[in-house]
């Protein structure tokens, strides 16, 4: 029932003409058909479009062309990535029905590599949340236990990969929105170095923190997808002016001689089963030849506070444009100010409103220095402490999420408790560093646990080597 085969295996078979892309797509669409009602990974399934795209790939293969490294591989796209002519909602009523007139750079790049978009995945509205419960179109369920959340905000993408709807997915990560749901759904999730992947066409939540990254079943597939979407893009001023680093080539280099630090501060307050997994992961790396030690990165303890000042502030500005004038929802009113306030009150859900309010407050007259300005200085402290750690270590290790997947509603009434889900992932966003999660064991409840590997800016190659070693250790 569940489709098998990694993205690499599928693309290889399709390129060699051993499997048709159409057959691959049909198989995955059948999986969607079988379980999507239960999971609700997608806001939109692109069945007809995917079949047509698959037929085109097959035609090209038959004509002797090479459709690219992801030939015929189904991919699920988080519904905050703009897709030309295809509704892109951010799981918000305010954008319901909006069809962007352009494709995000990553959407162009995966299509150019031969991948086939099978659907737009559910998310917490505007990527604000850690459970996908904040979607205006209903929550996504964790394929491992449908009474639990998949994590968030990229819960739909994580669930789509975990449920076998697609071997690959794209998500976005502002404070952990790829890594935390990947961990909770038992898949690999990567937040690249800030600027490594173009943000053009990613609907912004917090611009200085947002990064697009891959979901996959294994580290090699994630590496391949990152190679496809990475590299400079002239449409994004914050794009690193370098080609994407080669990752696939270094995956099997091993960790012998690498220095790996386990971050003490990020183990505090996490569940015992999660901490135990991190401990076993550290031992596994040591067994594989790495030099593993505990390390302190003190300023990370301020990460959550800094994040919840910076991200809402940027979001309050990024989301101003949803005003009922040019696109999306409008609630008619007598004058424009009433139209604005009525449209935004009706179009945004409670969490989005809360963050807009928080961010507006933090930027308003008299508070800038105490809140946003201060948080930016804390960001510097975190970067400095990481820099000190990276003088002694090649990569760092920590839990991805303090807990395994939690039940629906468990944290819905307490924003702060929900925010704490991201306490381990946020520091990398603030520093702009790469970080990824690899499934490593299960919790006392039998649900997946993810271990986070972090590296210095542009340290993806070493990060992937460590991740690959952890994956090997689990096998």
């Amino acid at each position: 029932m569940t489709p098998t085969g990694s993205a690499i295996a599928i693309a290889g078979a399709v390129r060699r003409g051993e499997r048709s892309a159409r057959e691959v797509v049909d198989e995955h669409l059948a999986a969607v058909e079988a379980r999507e009602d239960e999971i609700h990974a997608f806001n939109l399934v692109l069945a007809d479009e995917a079949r047509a795209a698959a037929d085109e790939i097959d035609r090209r293969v038959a004509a002797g062309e090479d459709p690219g490294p992801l030939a015929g591989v189904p991919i699920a796209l988080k519904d905050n990535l703009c897709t030309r002519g295809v509704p892109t909602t951010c799981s918000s009523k305010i954008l319901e029905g909006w069809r962007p007139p352009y494709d995000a750079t990553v959407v162009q790049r995966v299509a150019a590599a031969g991948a086939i978009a099978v659907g737009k995945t559910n998310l917490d509205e505007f990527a604000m949340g850690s459970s996908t419960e904040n979607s205006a179109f209903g929550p996504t369920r964790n394929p491992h236990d449908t009474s639990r959340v998949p994590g968030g905000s990229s819960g739909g993408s994580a669930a789509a990969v975990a449920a076998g709807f697609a071997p690959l997915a794209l998500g976005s990560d502002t404070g952990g929105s790829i890594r935390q749901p990947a961990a909770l759904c038992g898949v690999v999730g990567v937040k690249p170095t800030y600027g490594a992947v173009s943000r053009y066409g990613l609907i912004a939540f917090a611009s200085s923190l947002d990064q697009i990254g891959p979901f996959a079943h294994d580290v090699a597939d994630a590496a391949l997808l990152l190679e496809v979407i990475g590299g400079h893009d002239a449409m994004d001023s914050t794009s690193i002016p370098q080609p994407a680093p080669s990752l696939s080539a270094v995956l099997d280099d091993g960790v012998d001689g690498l220095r790996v630090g386990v971050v003490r501060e990020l183990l505090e307050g996490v569940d015992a089963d999660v901490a135990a997994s991190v401990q076993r992961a550290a031992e596994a790396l040591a067994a594989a030849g790495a030099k593993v030690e505990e390390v302190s990165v003190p300023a990370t303890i301020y990460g959550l506070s800094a994040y919840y000042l910076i991200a809402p502030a940027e979001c309050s500005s990024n989301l101003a444009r949803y005003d009922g004038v040019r696109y999306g929802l409008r609630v008619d009113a007598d004058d424009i100010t009433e139209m604005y306030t009525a449209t935004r009150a009706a179009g945004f859900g409670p969490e989005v409103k809360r963050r807009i309010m928080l961010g507006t407050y933090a930027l308003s007259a008299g508070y800038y220095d105490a809140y946003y300005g201060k948080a930016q200085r804390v960001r510097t402290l975190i970067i400095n402490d990481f820099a000190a750690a990276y003088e002694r270590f090649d990569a760092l290790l920590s839990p991805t999420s303090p807990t395994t997947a939690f039940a629906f509603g468990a944290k819905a009434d307490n924003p702060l408790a929900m925010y704490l889900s991201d306490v381990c992932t946020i520091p990398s966003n603030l520093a702009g560093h790469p970080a990824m999660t690899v499934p490593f064991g299960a919790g006392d409840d039998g649900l997946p646990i993810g271990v986070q590997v972090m590296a210095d800016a542009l340290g993806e190659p070493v990060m992937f080597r460590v991740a690959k070693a952890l994956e090997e250790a689990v096998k």
Partner: protein
Amino acid sequence: MSELVHADEWETVVGLEVHCELKTESKLFCGCRNAFGDEPNTNVCPVCLGLPGSLPVLNRHVVELAMRVGRALHCRVERSIFHRKNYFYPDMPKDYQISQYDEPIDVEGHLELPDGYRVGIVRAHIEEDTGKTAHIGGSGGRIHGADHSLVDYNRAGVPLLEIVSEPDIRTADQAKAYVSELRAILVATGASDGKMEEGSLRVDANVSVRPSHRATFGTRCEIKNLNSLRSLARAIEYEARRQIELLEAGESIVQETRHWNESEGRTSSMRSKEEAFDYRYFPEPDLVPVAPDEAWQATVAASLPVLPAERRARLADAAGVAPAEVALLVELDLDQLVLDSVALGADPRVSINRAQNEVAADIGNAGRLTPSSFAALVAMETAGKITATQAKQVLAAMLGGEGDDPAAIVAARGFEAMDESTLAASVDEVIAANPDQWQRFVGGDQKVTGFFVGQVMKRTQGKADGKAVTRLLQERARR
């Protein structure tokens, strides 16, 4: 408004903010055309429409123009960053404006007016323009009483350079001179087409008044919607009087933004009291700093043309006149012609007069004159070979395409200065024919001088030299 009793006891203080639309092919942050007058919403893309997911990328030429203007205004060109200025308005697609805030590209310069007065420049910064809103229903396209509005985003994202002066301006005329001079600099540097009527230059004036002896400034009001030099001057005069009247009546000035209504000739408060603005500036995370290095700055500096002030100084020096006297020539781009003509030995005064009157009147054909032909014409006039009237006619003929040899034109038309005795005879005939007017002239009535000169001109078919006629008349009156 009534006459002010104590107008001379007050001093007006003005600082100007000039928004200049930069002359580029494309917009500030996207590749859409930067063009005036196109069909609405035809020069738009995801970036300048603020569509979700779009990102800005800075136009290199905008930075270079800003650097050029900065140089021309004697500013320091600094490392600069962009901020977001957050407020809701339908002409602004993202509901924030990307603008340079506390770290602008150009800082601390000055602009010298033709009369030598220096106005300090606080800063010049890059920012994006808004779209255009048309108000439908109600009266005359005005916002109040309109039923609804229509928005065109062609102008949204057009690059602006906002140039902020120190409050060094003291009169409406000085404000006009400042804007004229700034406009000339912006045109000379290639930054602007200078078309105020198309909104390429838009001026806001910060106006306050204070008792003439006081050193501290009064409370200022910002006047918006000044779309011509005439509006600028009228608005400053109106606003200063309004403030003086309030103060003389014992009231105080409320710091606010006021809108100039050209047809009513008055300013009015722009917004309702409850509307509080809090722009929540923060650094634009989608853009990175602009930090021109020495090499780039040097390249830009080398590309600067000779600026109006230097052109005035150069000509004034050569002609031995005050710079202000040649301001018009520089504005008309005739300074080089005069400069070359003077270098060829032509009389500076006559050269300046002929250029700024006769040549200016047919400025489109000024290219038909060469320095040597112009200098030759001036030389014939100063040598008395032709009269001033004849010189003007010959110049008109040269501009009209009748060749660039003034001597040939003089010969063809039979122009020669009359000899003294023929002219004296004509003068005597005119006197004899008009005894009443002559009695008035002899009695000291200067007003009939023109009448006699005109009559002599008529009789000599314009060949007479007006100055010689006047001299002959005066000699005869003294007899």
